[in-house]
């Protein structure tokens, strides 16, 4: 197809080194080895940019760095991390997450009342302003049959080890967006565990636009029948950005649906993105339907996108499972077509990049964020004079 001109499609994913379910889980740092690039999960990460997140001890993000605009039915408070709410969605699978877990004595709880419904979005802003490594623990809890939209916006300059737990009650519907708009000098390692109640539905959106090292690992456990998760990601990496996204869907219960789609654009020497998509369909997950996709558009030489889909299937009784992954150069034919209609090169490139990402941007469903993202993309393309 002309649209995929120049793309290299992978026909099959890599075989995982170790099955995902066998990874150790613990909140204790000492249960994990020192971080090195020899470990698969840290393989690509520029370790010199961890900036203290790999240490056993780190500080704690102060409460004043978190502000919020909340929709009706949604509330926010700080609790001690001994609260039973903490730890209900998942446990760390690596060292930074474990360190962030143990160093956060307080937990930010964002709660949506059961059966409350609103189309307004709640915005929680995390504006860091320190070069010191800090921990943050967030629990998002959505009551039974509630319907809500929550956006977690990370900005400023910071070094943040973060765990986010998302717990959906039965029949709940959550549109959750995590934005990483860090300034340079920032490092952010975020693990986001989601646990979905029966017939609940989660839309999990990751938008990464800035930061020297940003690694987001959204892990969704589908342990109740009939749950559905849609995971979307958009990222735009420039020189000096390293962005890693590792979505993981664990199909445990029957008749669950997962759909993962991440798209990224890269420009500038040294821009590097990594996408590792893991889907595990356990023997119990009869009637599963899943699809995962990652596409990257390389706008200039010297940028690098790694893309690895892993699909592990332990039962033959599924509805469907598939994946696609491709990274390709900017399509000169598209550019030529637009320019032959009088559109100058800069604008033609913007059109193509916006078009490429729009499939995912349109899924966000929060107008103000979509607009902001489009403006940010245009500004970024202008900056490089691409």
């Amino acid at each position, binding site marked *: *197809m*002309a*649209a995929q*001109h120049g793309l290299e499609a992978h026909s099959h994913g890599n075989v995982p080194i170790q099955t995902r379910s066998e990874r150790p889980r613990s909140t204790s740092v000492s249960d994990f080895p020192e971080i090195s690039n020899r470990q698969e999960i840290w393989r690509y990460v520029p370790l010199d940019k961890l900036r203290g997140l790999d240490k056993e001890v780190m500080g704690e993000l102060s409460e004043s760095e978190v502000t919020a605009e909340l929709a009706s039915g949604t509330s926010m408070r700080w609790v001690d991390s001994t609260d039973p709410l903490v730890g209900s969605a998942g446990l760390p699978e690596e060292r930074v997450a474990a360190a962030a877990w143990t160093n956060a004595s307080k937990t930010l709880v964002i709660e949506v009342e059961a059966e409350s419904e609103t189309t307004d979005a709640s915005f929680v802003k995390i504006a860091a302003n320190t070069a010191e490594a800090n921990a943050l623990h967030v629990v998002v809890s959505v009551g039974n049959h509630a319907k809500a939209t929550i956006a977690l916006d990370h900005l400023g300059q910071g070094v943040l080890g973060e765990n986010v737990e998302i717990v959906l009650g039965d029949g709940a519907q959550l549109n959750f967006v995590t934005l990483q708009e860090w300034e340079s000098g920032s490092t952010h390692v975020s693990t986001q565990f989601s646990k979905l109640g029966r017939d609940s539905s989660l839309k999990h959106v990751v938008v990464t636009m800035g930061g020297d090292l940003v690694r987001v690992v959204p892990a969704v456990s589908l342990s109740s029948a009939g749950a559905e998760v849609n995971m979307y990601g958009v990222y735009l990496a420039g020189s000096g950005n390293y962005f890693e996204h590792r979505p993981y869907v664990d199909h445990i219960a029957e008749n669950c649906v997962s759909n993962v789609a991440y798209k990224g654009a890269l420009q500038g020497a040294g821009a590097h993105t990594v996408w590792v998509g893991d889907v595990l369909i356990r023997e119990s997950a009869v009637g599963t339907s899943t699809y995962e996709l990652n596409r990257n558009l390389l706008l200039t030489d010297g940028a690098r996108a790694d893309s690895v889909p892993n699909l592990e299937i332990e039962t033959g009784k599924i509805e469907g499972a598939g994946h696609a992954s491709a990274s390709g150069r900017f*399509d*000169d*034919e*598209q550019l*030529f*077509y*637009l*320019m*032959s*209609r*009088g*559109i*100058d*090169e800069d*604008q*033609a490139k913007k*059109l*193509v990049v*916006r*078009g*490429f*990402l*729009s*499939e995912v941007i349109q899924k966000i469903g929060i107008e103000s964020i979509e607009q902001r993202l489009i403006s940010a993309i245009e500004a970024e393309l202008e900056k490089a004079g691409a």
Partner: protein
Amino acid sequence: MTTLEIKNLHVSVETDQGSKQILRGVDLTIKSGEIHAVMGPNGSGKSTLAYSVAGHPKYEVTDGQILLDGEDVLEMSVDERARAGLFLAMQYPVEIPGVSVSNFLRTAKTALSGEAPKLREWVGDLRDAMGNLRMDSDFTERNVNEGFSGGEKKRHEILQLELLKPKIAILDETDSGLDVDALKVVSEGVNRAHADNGLGVLLITHYTRILRYIKPDFVHVFVAGKVAEQGGAELAERLENEGYDRYTKAAV
């Protein structure tokens, strides 16, 4: 009055085996209001000629000139050529995911006229042009060329021709893949642009079928990278009956 002059044009492409010469000295002059048909066997270089005029980066001009009213077209970028009044209806228009036809057309119109068209007028023009080409109005919400049938792609090219109002248009096999009804509709579009804007046309085709609807003033036989013979409309009839054997043998 606009004149496009192609003089002694030599063009090569880079291949894995090195540079390959395709055009070997093409001479053609097209003026406003004239309709030229170019016919020739597969691989003779017709699309190469079209792309070279439009400025596709794949083709390297090694000798010769292209002038538009005396201005050096070869010095212009692709978009500058379009803004100077050249248009190419492509043989294989490319898909552009995520870019709607409506956004694309408005952006192109704005780029060509230097200012955004007045919304009310633009919407009217678009609706009329689409109606004339028997295109559904929801077509504008689709992404450029994505999932278009062969016929829809060609109509979309002619829609642009009518809305963007170039001075000289090259139509690269706009007739291929069209059924008779679509061929008529598309031909009417070209004839409208010709009658209304005094468009000069270079029509590349394999068949005389389209020449029943679009009457050429000149017919050029294109063989092995150059014009082998020129004549009036009657030459097309002869080609249809006799084929290109006469020329291809001579070219060897």
